[in-house]
């Protein structure tokens, strides 16, 4: 009887590991990319995804719908990133009253503009940056973004709005780069 139980548990554990391995293989690249956009650092993004996947595996038996594993991991990435930045005070270090210098003449315009926008984005507080990444990179709805960040929809709106306002202020009158109209996004499958 006890042996049967042990064998059953071993089988369940092996199945869990196989399911989890399949999930990691299929989705880790996408998860890493999103994490990189939130933290702006390759090594930190790797640490973040590793931590989030560890949490996901620890919670695997309780994730009754394994189809939700990616949403769970994405949420772990986002909340862990926010927590890390908050604890380490990185948001204060990186969030800035002094925006990066505008691109100087002589640069390739497109590259310079892209670099400048990236630097401005990385200078935002982590919550604002996470909200923008989830909305405009992951193409999540406001409700999905709120669920992922563990906050109210109104908070998502205000974080995105504040982030875009800062970018607009820093980028000046480049309407093409940051038009004033609100983007509507839909979830896309990648």
């Amino acid at each position, binding site marked *: 009887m006890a042996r049967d139980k042990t064998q059953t548990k071993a089988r369940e554990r092996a199945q869990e*590991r196989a399911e989890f391995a399949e999930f990691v293989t299929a989705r880790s690249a996408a998860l890493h990319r999103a994490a990189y956009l939130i933290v702006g650092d390759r090594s930190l993004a790797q640490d973040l995804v*590793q931590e989030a996947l*560890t949490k996901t595996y620890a919670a695997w038996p309780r994730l009754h719908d394994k189809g*939700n594993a990616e949403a769970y*991991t994405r949420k772990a990435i986002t909340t*862990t990133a926010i*927590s890390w930045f908050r604890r380490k005070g990185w948001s204060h270090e990186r969030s800035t009253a002094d925006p990066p210098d505008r691109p100087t003449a002589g640069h390739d315009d497109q590259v310079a503009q892209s670099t400048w926008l990236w630097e401005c984005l990385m200078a935002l507080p982590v919550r604002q940056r996470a909200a923008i990444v989830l909305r405009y990179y992951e193409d999540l709805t406001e409700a999905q973004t709120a669920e992922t960040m*563990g906050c109210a929809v109104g908070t998502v709106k205000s974080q995105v709005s504040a982030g875009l306002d800062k970018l607009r202020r820093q980028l000046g009158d480049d309407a093409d780069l940051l038009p004033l109209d609100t983007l509507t996004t839909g979830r896309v499958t990648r």
Partner: protein
Amino acid sequence: MTEKLKNLLHDRAAAVDFAVPDVDALTRAGDRRRRRRSAAVVAGGAAVLVAVGGAVVLPQLLGGDGSPEPAGAPAPTPALTWASGQTLYGPDLPGGKVALQHDVRAYVRTSAGFVLADSDGTVWSLVDGTETRVGTTDAKAPHLVSDTQGTLAGWLDASGDKPAYVVLDQATGDTTTYDNQPAGASDPSGPGSSPYFYAIDGHTAYWRDARGAVATDLDTRQATVVDSPAGSDLDITAAKGGLVAFNGENGTSIGTSPADAVHLKGSFGGPGAFSPDGHWFTEDADEPKVWDDTTGERVKLDLEYNFASGYGWLDDHTLLVLGQDGWQDKLAIVQCHVPAGDCSPAQTGLGSFHQLDQEGFALPVGSRMGQ
């Protein structure tokens, strides 16, 4: 807009390569966390915004690395905790315990942290390792309510000219005060109309005013009478996802109103708790009782304690039970899987009732033990 912003995000993301993580290392780390967890387991009026202050820094509480667990199936704030004296214990807390700056008479948890009442009646919010004074409640019989899956907690503050309900949002730290008397309602008379905060479910608060038990939308302040007249502190014992546990002469019934509620067979009534998904309900009794809310049928639990009582939930399918073999024996917290009914010790050797009572023992149910 944002085409350039979107393009930038996609270009930047595509420009970096990442190796597939070491799955074996992840599962080993995940297994360690599971063992640690289970070892621990063994183990309409006017609103007034109140400024918060007096922050006291404490060690991080949440998650293995200090960061919150994502909400969803598992709760971000550790579900398995207990307090004794000035210490909060729990397997998922750093080092298994956190020293507080004050004693704990009653406490609750939300998805953002803990809300605690001390013996002076001061209410504290504990979020991200920071303890903040947020209000005042009854020092003799503190009673806190919360939504374990949301960020709101509440209590009755009777320290002013007239009692008021206070709701704290642990996500923002803001407290909002609600008058306990609706506009135009007659003055309360008799004990039946004394204010009482029953429960919080999402952004709906259940409390008592002169009309009886009302459900108040905390955003719009619109109140709807759900049980009139309500005269006992246990008219409503819990609420989850729109379902309410009504306490009547025949015990507890579950529904959106007393009229449509399903009676729980064998219930004698009393404080209780819904599972996070609202499917199951447990009731404080001398034996652990759990019901399927949809049918009112009891679930059989394989548990052998002379005294045991369900008091909360680890997740949608795991009931937490406080158990004791004999009066002098030490208490244990047991986890029972529902509906399978199998149980195993989560935390043993908590101390006897007498000992714990002397030290001031509390579980995250919002009231003093035995209150």
